């Protein structure tokens, strides 16, 4: 099995295929349907033994760095408008890379306005694994 991160970007990926309005302009029922799709997807993966984790992130983030010896950390932001905005992620544990692609494709079909798939780009990143014992 191999673990993959499915990263959901609001911005920063390839150009979207479908030009849809931001979610706050959708009809409430459309938002509900979208959320339900995500929950159903996660529940289905729990059922197949492939679900590891899923989290949503607040859109506002702050950049932080070391401030130098004895000084407080330096912050920059908060930024609501960065080039790349990560909205959340899901971690899956699957048998093959092909299966990871299949699941990412399914998640990307979540419905948007008029109940049509939004075709959003998801970023798929493999986890580094533990080192195998037998190497030579």
């Amino acid at each position: 099995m191999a673990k993959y991160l499915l990263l959901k970007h609001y911005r920063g990926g390839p150009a979207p295929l479908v030009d849809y309005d931001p979610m706050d302009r959708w009809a409430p029922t459309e938002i509900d349907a979208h959320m339900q799709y995500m929950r159903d997807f996660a529940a289905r993966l729990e059922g197949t033994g492939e679900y590891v984790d899923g989290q949503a992130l607040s859109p506002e983030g702050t950049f932080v760095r070391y401030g130098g010896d004895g000084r407080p950390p330096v912050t920059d932001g908060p930024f609501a408008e960065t080039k790349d905005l990560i909205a959340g992620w899901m971690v899956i544990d699957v048998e093959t890379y092909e299966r990871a692609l299949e699941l990412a494709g399914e998640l990307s079909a979540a419905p948007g306005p008029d109940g049509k798939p939004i075709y959003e780009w998801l970023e798929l990143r493999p986890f580094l694994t533990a080192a195998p014992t037998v190497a030579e």
Partner: protein
Amino acid sequence: MNEALLRTLIPAVTGVLIRRGADFATAEDAVQEALIRALATWPKDPPADPKGWLTTVAWRKFVDTTRAENSRRAREARVEAEPPPGPTKDTADTLQLYFLCAHPSLTPASAVALTLRAVGGLTTRQIAEAYLVPEATMAQRISRAKRTVSDVHFDEHWQDGDLATVLRVLYLVFNEGYSGEVDLADEAIRLTRQVTSMTDDEEASGLLALMLLHHARRAARRTPDGALVPLAEQDRSRWDTELIAEGVATLQAALARDRLGEYQAQAAIAALHADAPKADETDWVQIVEWYDELDRLTDNPVVRLNRAVAVGEADGAQAGLAALEQVDPVVPRYTAVAAYLRERAGELALAARLYGDAARGATNLAERDHLTRQAARLHDVLRG
């Protein structure tokens, strides 16, 4: 009684339930519940007859479960006809469980999970922890695996090749996964030992020898901070000589029967490494010969890649690079091997670049860090 001993009883208890008429999935669940109860109560109140205790508790649990189900009458008829525990068929039952848990209809990960639970006697939580997934996910994986094999008749005759699938699963347990509360390498060795004693098979012995010989190096394989130490740089005084002796003896007994297989050949290579008091005393010529055997037995590109390393040691870097040309560059760790051989050939700039490429392509953290350090070391040399 410690937990490890307790777990050795699990497959036999499941076997008793199945012989009394329980189906595999329900029996296995019942035994798991008995196990969890044993883990909670035995430390304070150990039973005089642990196996009898587990069997009784698991059987009661099974009866409760089946009563709760709809087919009450039919099942109770069977339950009431409870036969006494007959003459011991433990060994046969236990082997049957191994075959069932490694059934070819299961994916490798499902077979691993089911084996660890139904014959290893680990709890779902322990298995989930070893593979870094939530317990609920692992529970689902196990129950799906049980559904997949539910149509397999328990006493179906084993086919040739069934043992090979069991050994493959045990090899995966040994080789992959993280070590948390339960040490998967120890667990794989324990189970392989059991299979070896039940089957008298050369390849089972070969696999056991392979595991013992690799396990012997465990203390030397990592620095205290967890960095990978390559074989050539390991402190050989930290290798476990008892495990090596057992591994070598197990291997020799298997090889003497003249039915070579891939695990025996792999173990032979590990034994030749174990035999060298210092890295530069390694018998690389013999190792190359074993890789040739292994190549004939498996037709595995990874074998040809490792063979190229051995050829490089036996006949020099140019010979190694020539051997590498026979390997498909998409094989994992190809670039790392190319970097190593280029460095040995004195092409330091190229080697440094290849180590960097190999680090970016590495699929595990320890290897990536190791390769990054190799690249950094060469860049340092090149700067003068």
